[in-house]
């Protein structure tokens, strides 16, 4: 990637500027401008179809995998334009990891899932150690240490999602994009993922799309409210929740908009 001239501390980890994404005739994001400060947790809330997923996918160039997509505006990662000529999308996705709403494990062993990314990237070190390290970080090690060769599909839904997070951590990404990681889970599994996210914030910049307003309030430093593809409001989580500036944000937070 090309040189970053500005001092690192002042450059946001991610910055979208007038970002518009269209799928065919449908506008999924309309002129979104927002910065994700380094080392912080930013949650993206809003109704279904409001553009949360599209925004996250714009941050690691996943939208371009959909035929018929057009993107205008810019997305910068550490100040570097993600769509710059020399930028390799594969490298982008290694530095900016993503966890999907549904656990998307490969029908292979737990171990194979964890080390899939490192193997693809030609990881030089000891895979076994790396697997243990990230499984510990994902709070799954004690449950699977004895049977890493078991098919990953045999894990419970909550374990599967933690394995997905471990698998992404194995890339050693700087940024984690978590797309409604708990929406398919029961409250107990959700609580475990939330405490996991809380522990991951130490070493990562996190963007968390979520349906749960309380989850956003609990976990994030900043919150963005997206509806109809527009960024309605963005600010420190506490301020946005206690004193929203926009009436639409207030309506959503008080449950009048689903």
């Amino acid at each position: 990637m090309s040189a970053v001239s500005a001092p690192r501390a002042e450059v946001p980890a991610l910055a979208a500027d007038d970002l518009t994404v269209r799928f065919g005739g449908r506008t999924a994001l309309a002129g979104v401008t927002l910065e994700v400060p380094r080392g912080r947790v930013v949650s993206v809330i809003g109704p279904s179809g409001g553009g949360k997923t599209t925004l996250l996918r714009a941050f690691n160039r996943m939208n371009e995998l959909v035929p018929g997509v057009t993107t205008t505006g810019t997305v910068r990662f550490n100040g570097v334009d993600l769509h710059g000529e020399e930028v390799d999308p594969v490298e982008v996705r290694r530095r900016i990891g993503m966890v999907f709403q549904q656990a998307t494990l490969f029908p292979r062993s737990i171990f194979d899932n964890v080390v899939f990314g490192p193997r693809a990237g030609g990881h030089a070190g000891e895979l076994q150690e790396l697997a243990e390290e990230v499984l510990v970080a994902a709070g799954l090690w004690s449950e699977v240490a004895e049977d890493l060769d078991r098919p990953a599909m045999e894990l419970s839904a909550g374990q599967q999602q933690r394995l997905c997070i471990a698998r992404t951590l194995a890339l050693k990404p700087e940024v984690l994009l978590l797309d409604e990681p708990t929406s398919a889970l029961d409250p107990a599994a959700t609580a475990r993922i939330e405490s996991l996210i809380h522990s991951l914030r130490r070493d990562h910049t996190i963007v968390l799309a979520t349906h749960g307003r309380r989850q956003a309030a609990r976990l994030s430093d900043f919150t963005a409210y997206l509806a109809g593809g527009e960024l309605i409001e963005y600010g420190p989580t506490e301020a946005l929740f206690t004193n929203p500036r926009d009436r639409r944000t207030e309506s959503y937070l008080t449950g009048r908009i689903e």
Partner: protein
Amino acid sequence: MKAAGLSLKRRAPRGPGDRLARPVFLSCAVVTAAALVAVVGVLGVETVRFFGTVSPGRFLTEAAWTPFAEEPRFGVLPLLAATAQITVGAAVFAVPAGLMTAVYMEHYAGVRTERVLAGVTTMLAAVPTVILGYVALTFVTPVILRTLWPGTEAFNAMSACLAVGLMILPTVIVFTRSALRSVPRALMEAGLALGAGRGRVVARVLVPAALPGIVAAVFLATARAAGETMIVTLAAGNQTQLAWSPLEGLRTLTAFIAQSSLGDAPSGTVRYGAFFAVSAVLVAVTWGLHATGSFLISRTRAGDAG
């Protein structure tokens, strides 16, 4: 408009079409089943009669098939081996080509290319096998094979393998595509999101996940290859021999049956019975392959649900 009211009584009398529908459909279904029973019955009766003269043990183990010799021998192995050779040979050509075509169409091709390829596949499937057989005989053998190996016989296994491979290629492509499509699309995205290239995700995740369906596709395709008659009769010749060189001619189960039907074996003779015994073997082979394929496909579908 007048309200229909709450009555659930029949308001219009049922026409004759309505009353006859069920028995008509049922009788069609019965005819289908009856036809199958008849085929199995005829094969069974004549085969049992044949085994009254030639023991099943000798039939299945003897390595010579010489029904016209003074001391005729009825060992089905050379015919079975020839069928196996053609089937495996066709699969060797069609399976990798079909698999890669299917992967390309599913995961690489743009919408337009994919449509063109799908059309080509359909058209290839619609080419009558007699034409593929003639192409093998008049083009593949003299133009391609003889250039590479001048000693190639006019009738040879290789040309038949290529033509039969071409015939089963659409089957492999269509079923492999449907197997690939049954793998959740999200797995491709998950793989790419983990910083893997498309080729790696295809080879390490998508194809393995689709493997049961792909294996089923191979079985269904080979069932067709084993039963193929026209191409092998035209291109592979009619030499009953255990020939292991693909450049020599051979005679498959089907080619023998086709030849027998030309009427040089009077009803009631042992040679006439041999035709049915060979038919029974052929049906057993194709059913076995087909049933294996169908079973694998049904298991894949059940796996999806669970």
